[in-house]
């Protein structure tokens, strides 16, 4: 690990350690009460889920159309993070919904399309692990398809009837709720950058090892 990665990791860990105090200081919400505090980790997870899907799609496009081999490492790293943050979103959301809506899950456009995106990236990782030769290009196509799903997920709450909070909630939050939210968004963004760098480095080092083995076999 590089020094800058370690510093960023320590900073993210420190921010996560302080997050419970920040969230505890936020007031309860009038209709949902205490349970809405899941939002402070649920919303940043969902944002990072979508950012990871976009990052994987962009890196895959660079790999496919510009023939940059290193971009494949970035695409795989971002794809794995999409699954990680997608799992956070899809676990914390139902826990919140159970109390706020009275049910764990509803098949509305937002939840269903989020589940679809998660499954696309799970399939992407399975393809990359077990797909054999050529799975990098097939996977890149899948990641592009996943990225195309993101704008639909984002606007879905505004166009289809749902219980889910609308996109207008974030800019209209009162300051005492907004401060802990943006603190958590910053912590999650930092964590996302650190994890992406670490995971991409792992993939690039693996490529170097493979290249060295090939070189040994040839000589």
């Amino acid at each position: 690990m590089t020094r800058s990665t370690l510093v960023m990791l320590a900073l993210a860990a420190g921010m996560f350690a302080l997050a419970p105090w920040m969230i505890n200081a936020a007031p309860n919400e009038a209709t949902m009460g205490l349970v809405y505090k899941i939002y402070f980790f649920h919303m940043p997870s969902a944002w990072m889920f979508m950012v990871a899907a976009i990052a994987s799609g962009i890196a895959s496009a660079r790999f496919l159309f510009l023939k940059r081999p290193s971009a494949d490492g970035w695409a795989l790293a971002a794809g794995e993070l999409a699954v990680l943050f997608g799992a956070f979103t899809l676990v914390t959301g139902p826990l919140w919904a159970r109390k706020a809506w009275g049910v764990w899950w509803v098949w509305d456009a937002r939840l269903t399309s989020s589940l679809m995106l998660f499954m696309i990236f799970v399939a992407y990782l399975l393809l990359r692990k077990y797909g054999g030769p050529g799975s990098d290009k097939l996977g890149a196509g899948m990641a592009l398809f996943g990225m195309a799903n993101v704008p639909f997920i984002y606007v879905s709450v505004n166009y289809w009837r749902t219980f889910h909070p609308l996109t207008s909630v974030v800019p209209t939050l009162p300051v005492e709720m907004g401060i802990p939210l943006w603190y958590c968004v910053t912590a999650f963004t930092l964590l996302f950058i650190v994890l992406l760098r670490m995971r991409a480095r792992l993939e690039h080092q693996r490529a170097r090892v493979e290249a060295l083995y090939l070189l040994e076999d040839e000589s």
Partner: protein
Amino acid sequence: MRLRSLLLCGCLIAMPIAATAAQPPPSGDFVPVDETLPGEQIPALPLIATAYGFIWVVLLGYVWTIGRRLQKVESELAALESRGK
């Protein structure tokens, strides 16, 4: 023939709608109450603890696995590079 098929399709579609509309009003088996019954409230704290706990545990596990995998690959790389010199 075509007209008869269309009429048949129309009847098939209209029948369930007409049946639903003809249903009597609810008989009153379920009686609504305004207040929440004691013991029916879902406690929020276990849900919040599960949500935050899940994220913390999975994150720590993920960082640990990346660190371990990275260490393994970098030691393999160092060994290969020293062998090549």
